[in-house]
């Protein structure tokens, strides 16, 4: 049976570079001396540490508890001692630090207890399953890191199709491919569990057609389990076929509404790695403490390793025969959407799928680009490549002109930063960098506007109160004076008082006139605004071509 596929528009064909790292089987990476566990490895609120410095921890033990619903716990990936809890470099495009639990491993790898009794997921209710998945610390392993239990809600039976994303469209990344090749049965088991949690009638597993072996294994596993509600489809190898929205369109022909979620069209999409983690958690009682990671690029032996969460990237690079002294660039993720690390002492986290190493000696495999961009020649290569149907050249044009409302007219916020436009641009314009800059500026402006709205409101409130008090004071004075006037008998005195009162009234009237909002700013506010304006003037926008 062949499912009809619907191509998404645009996209680019990329050289895959997947062969190197798929030649040898996956093995566990060495247990590093120290593990660095950021409290936030997912989207949502950071977990809260439940251990103290000096505590002994066992493999699989909770070391940080989830906080709120959009959060998951963190577990110790191996046994050892908590060496520190504090700021450490984390893998983030900003290069910032964040709170981490640092564990000195003891090399014994002792588990917290005997593996929990075998659970048949059919015995658990969807609600119990979700809780178990949450307690196992599972987040989307495809890259976004959204807590998985939130995407497994059977709420009102809205989910008609569960899509398992095995497309893995970025060059170099091969961890999902190796996972499907080596753990197909577990992946399918995970799919089964998810389906049970979602109460979804049908499932589709989508795999790019450049992974025939993975496809074969998955098909076998489906057949083996007699799952007639699962369909395995091959999708064309076009970047970004594995983008959630693109994949949904490819296999269902439907588009996720703008600003909506896949669930709005009855679809939920999970990564194959997540399915595997769920299977390990439910069937074997193992929380998420390790994952498959591709190490590729300028290393002697590119391969996929099963890596403990928290392992420093530098350890992995050395384990695969890379030279730490000649690193020029280390990408976490793929070459199209991954980000460059500021430091190689950052840990692998739950969402890390690939470490791509570039050496400064040969400047391979990611040669740096000459700094010189030419002006946009409006060739339209970018809009032909954009999988979202945007006009990147117009976005660029208006961003450069700092016309941020126009940029939004051209749907800046629908841009998924896939990089296709940037990839094909003959003028070598760093387009995505411009879009990030525009998005950040707009967010910043919104925040500032909200802040200034609040302070303006406060100020007006204050002003009104002062006015009211003044009025009341005047009122009191008037009464007093009237009393005085009544006592006074002489007419000329009366007249003088009248005149004085007249003057006072006039004065009141002038002070009562409400000044305009902008004139009302306090000196401090005015200074603040000028400062912001100045900063904005000076703010180095993205690299501009000359």
């Amino acid at each position: 049976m062949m499912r009809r596929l619907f191509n998404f528009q645009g996209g680019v064909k990329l050289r895959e570079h997947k062969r190197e790292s798929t030649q040898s089987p996956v093995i566990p990476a060495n247990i590093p001396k120290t593990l660095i566990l950021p409290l936030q490895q997912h989207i949502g609120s950071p977990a809260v540490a439940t251990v103290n410095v000096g505590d002994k921890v066992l493999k699989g033990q909770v070391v940080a508890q989830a906080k709120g619903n959009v959060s998951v716990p963190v577990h110790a990936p191996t046994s050892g001692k908590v060496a520190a809890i504090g700021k450490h470099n984390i893998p983030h495009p900003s290069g910032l630090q964040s709170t981490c639990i640092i564990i000195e491993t003891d090399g014994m790898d002792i588990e917290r207890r005997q593996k929990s009794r075998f659970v048949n997921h059919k015995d658990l209710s969807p609600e119990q399953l979700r809780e178990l998945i949450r307690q196992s610390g599972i987040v989307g392993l495809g890259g976004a890191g959204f807590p998985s239990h939130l995407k497994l809600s059977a709420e009102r039976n809205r989910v008609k199709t569960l899509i398992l994303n095995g497309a893995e469209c970025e060059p170099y990344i091969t961890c999902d491919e190796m996972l499907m090749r080596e753990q197909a049965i577990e992946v399918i088991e995970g799919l089964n569990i998810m389906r049970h949690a979602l109460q979804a009638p049908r499932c589709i597993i989508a795999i790019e057609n450049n992974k025939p072996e993975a496809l074969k294994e998955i098909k076998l596993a489906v057949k083996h389990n007699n799952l007639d509600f699962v369909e395995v489809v091959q999708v064309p190898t076009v970047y970004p076929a594995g983008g959630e929205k693109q994949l949904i369109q490819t296999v269902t022909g439907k588009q996720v509404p703008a600003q909506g979620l896949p669930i709005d069209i009855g679809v939920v999409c999970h990564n194959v790695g997540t399915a595997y983690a769920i299977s390990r958690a439910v069937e074997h009682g193992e929380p998420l403490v390790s994952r498959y990671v591709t190490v590729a690029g300028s290393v002697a032996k590119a391969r996929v390793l099963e890596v403990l969460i928290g392992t420093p990237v530098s350890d992995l690079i050395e384990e695969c025969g890379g030279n730490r002294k000649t690193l020029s660039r280390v990408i976490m993720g793929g070459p199209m959407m991954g980000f460059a690390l500021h430091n190689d002492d950052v840990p692998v986290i739950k969402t890390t799928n690939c470490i791509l190493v570039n050496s400064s000696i040969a400047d391979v495999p990611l040669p740096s680009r000459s700094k010189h961009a030419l002006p946009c020649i409006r060739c339209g290569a970018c809009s032909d490549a954009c999988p979202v149907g945007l006009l990147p050249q117009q976005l660029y044009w208006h961003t450069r002109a700092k016309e941020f409302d126009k940029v939004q007219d051209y749907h800046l916020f629908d841009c998924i930063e896939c990089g296709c436009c940037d990839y094909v641009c003959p003028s070598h314009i760093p387009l995505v960098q411009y879009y990030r800059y525009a998005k950040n500026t707009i967010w910043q402006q919104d925040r500032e506007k909200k802040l200034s709205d609040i302070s303006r409101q406060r100020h007006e409130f204050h002003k009104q109160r002062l006015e009211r008090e003044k009025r009341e004071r005047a009122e009191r004075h008037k009464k007093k004076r009237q009393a005085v006037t009544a006592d006074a008998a002489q007419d000329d005195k009366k007249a003088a008082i009248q005149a004085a009162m007249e003057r006072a009234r006039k004065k009141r009237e002038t002070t009562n006139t409400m000044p305009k909002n902008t004139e009302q700013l306090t000196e401090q506010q005015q200074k603040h605004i000028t400062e912001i304006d100045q900063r904005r003037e000076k703010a180095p926008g993205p690299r501009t071509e000359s």
Partner: protein
Amino acid sequence: MSLNTPTSPHIHDDTSVTKVMLRVLLALVPAIIAYSWYFGWGLLINIAIAATTALACEYTMLMLRQRPVAPFMTDGSIVVTAILLAFCIPPLAPWWIAFLGTGFAVVVGKHLYGGLGYNPFNPAMVGYVMLLISFPKEMTTWLPPNLVQDLNFGFLTSLNAVFTGNLPAGFSLDGITAATPLDLIKTQLNQDITITETKNSYALFGDFGGIGWEWIGNWVFLGGVWLIYKKVINWHIPVAVLGSLFVISLVFFLMDADYYGSPMFHLFSGAAILGAFFIATDPVSAATTPRGRIIYGIGIGLLTYIIRVWGGYPDGIGFAVLLMNLAAPTIDYYTQPRVYGHKRK
């Protein structure tokens, strides 16, 4: 340790403006050869003059505008402009025609509007239209293709003619030059001579277009199709220009074949094919959305026909392109593609 932290994407296609322009130049080679075959050395001499002028002007303007010289001099776009303009200049026109035209195209058409990427009008057509308006006589006296009258001027003779205006003994410029087929039909029609009669009495007409012209057209076409195949240009504009020109000329041809040229004649005479594939597709000044490109192309096709048939100039491609350049930003604005997940506006 300090690592480089450029932002994604970290890989890029092996492309550049220079490469794009080189492909356009390559696609023009068959046409240049064919043209030279039928009209002698004139085109190559014009190209040499135009290209030299263009590069000199580009250099001067970059210096004056204090822009980096190397990247812009090597992007190749200015050479494309020069060659396209040279195609529009009669083969043995005096040297200062190509010189003035290219100078105007580069200085006014390109740089005064802000240089590469910012010019709203196609620079080559700005130069061409300036020449046509200022020097109508020089711009409309073409040589007959050598299929009609084999002049067989050598390179030096041609060079001499271009630079001094002197022809070998026994020839005079007025004696050998002829109008282009389009021009001829126009003047004849003004004297109430029908197309059929003109065709019968002049040897300038070939199987379906102008003699010689039709074959040049084929070679231009070939280059254009290659550009589409190589994804340097999209199919939208050429198809829309030629399609609309075909349809409108067919309609009028069917109404009165004596007065209106056949569709094939319109397609294969003059600069229609060159215009459709190489001039209207100049990315900087064209519409850029897919639907916009089609509207833009149709506009050029229709305007070309209107100007050819009812206007004061023999060929309308230049004017049509400039007029549609003017409309391109508006067209783009109203033809934005539907964005993923959005409803069509």
